[in-house]
């Protein structure tokens, strides 16, 4: 009576996966043991199954799946490639706009600056709360104001002098 190990070795031999030692052992067994020989012949059922199924028309693919899949994948890739440059351009534009917003003062900031100058010139003492810059300005605008400070000072001074001169002239 064959054991499981022997059956496995016969199966590996039939599948041409047996190593040299197993091959020699099975070949000797097939010569001497009728039970092993019968078992080996029964494995022919798989060969017959393979041959019969392989000859069926339905077992032949109706079209090339490889070509279809590759075409689809390449089309997908070129689609992304087409959009890619536009995404890069959009990203650059966004960065430029953000940088411009940080460098140049907004209209609101300019109006606040002029309004503060006028108040100071008129000698109005503002309460501390009003003189103190807004929290947003303190947190985010300090550097911007620092870099622009000399230019603002110059502009302010010019504007102040111009207002003084204009006040001297009578209203027309």
């Amino acid at each position, binding site marked *: 009576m064959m054991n*499981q190990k022997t*059956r*496995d070795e016969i*199966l*590996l031999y039939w*599948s041409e*996966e047996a190593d040299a030692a197993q091959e020699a052992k099975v070949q000797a067994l097939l010569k001497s043991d009728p039970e092993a020989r019968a078992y080996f012949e*029964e*494995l022919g*059922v*798989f*060969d*017959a*199954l*393979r041959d*019969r*199924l*392989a000859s*069926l*028309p*339905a*077992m*032949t*693919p*109706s079209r*090339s*799946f*490889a*070509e*279809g*899949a*590759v*075409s*689809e*994948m*390449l089309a997908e*890739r070129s689609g992304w490639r087409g959009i890619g440059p536009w995404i890069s351009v959009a990203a650059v534009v966004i960065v430029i706009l953000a940088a411009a917003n940080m460098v140049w003062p907004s209209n609101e900031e300019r109006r606040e600056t002029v309004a503060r100058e006028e108040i100071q010139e008129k000698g109005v003492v503002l309460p501390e709360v009003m003189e103190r810059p807004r929290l947003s300005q303190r947190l985010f605008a300090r550097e911007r104001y620092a870099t622009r400070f000399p230019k603002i000072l110059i502009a302010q001074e010019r504007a102040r002098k111009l207002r003084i001169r204009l006040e001297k002239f009578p209203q027309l």
Partner: protein
Amino acid sequence: MDDSFLIRKYCNEGDGDAAIELLKRYERPLYQYIWQMLLQQQDCEDVMQETFRKALRALPNYREENHFKSWLFRIGRNEAVDIIRRRRRAVVAEAPEEYLGGVQDIVSLPGARELIEERESLEALTRAIALLPEKEKEVVAMRTQGELSFKEIAEIVGAPIGTVLARMHAAKKRLKSLLNTELDR
């Protein structure tokens, strides 16, 4: 050109022809394996399409130490198993109708008797395959139609080689009793 060369050509250079050549090498055995699992042409084609699609997407991450054929069969097996799990009714082998057409078409042909006997034999064959348990069926299909070694099959299904061989033994015994004299013709 070996598989690794074709994979590099596709991944690095976007060479579609290399990818087609690579997949075509295994298209027929993979198709036959999946067909034997599903026994239904439409499902088989859907699985083939999805398997190749997933394989191409995952190819940049493919590790060359794995055998490409085993890797591809693993993807196909997973897709086929998903289909089987979604099915709610037993699979009826449809193959004989497709192979030989309706009976009316056959009767008038010369050699009609032999054709009808052939058809009945094929019905018996596909019915026997359908009656195999899934685990045995996939081992038989991978070995006979997919032409994979038992070692590769063990890697794909995630079982020890001894288990795979045991399933093959069991399938042999079952097929023999189901088919009896059919395969001796």
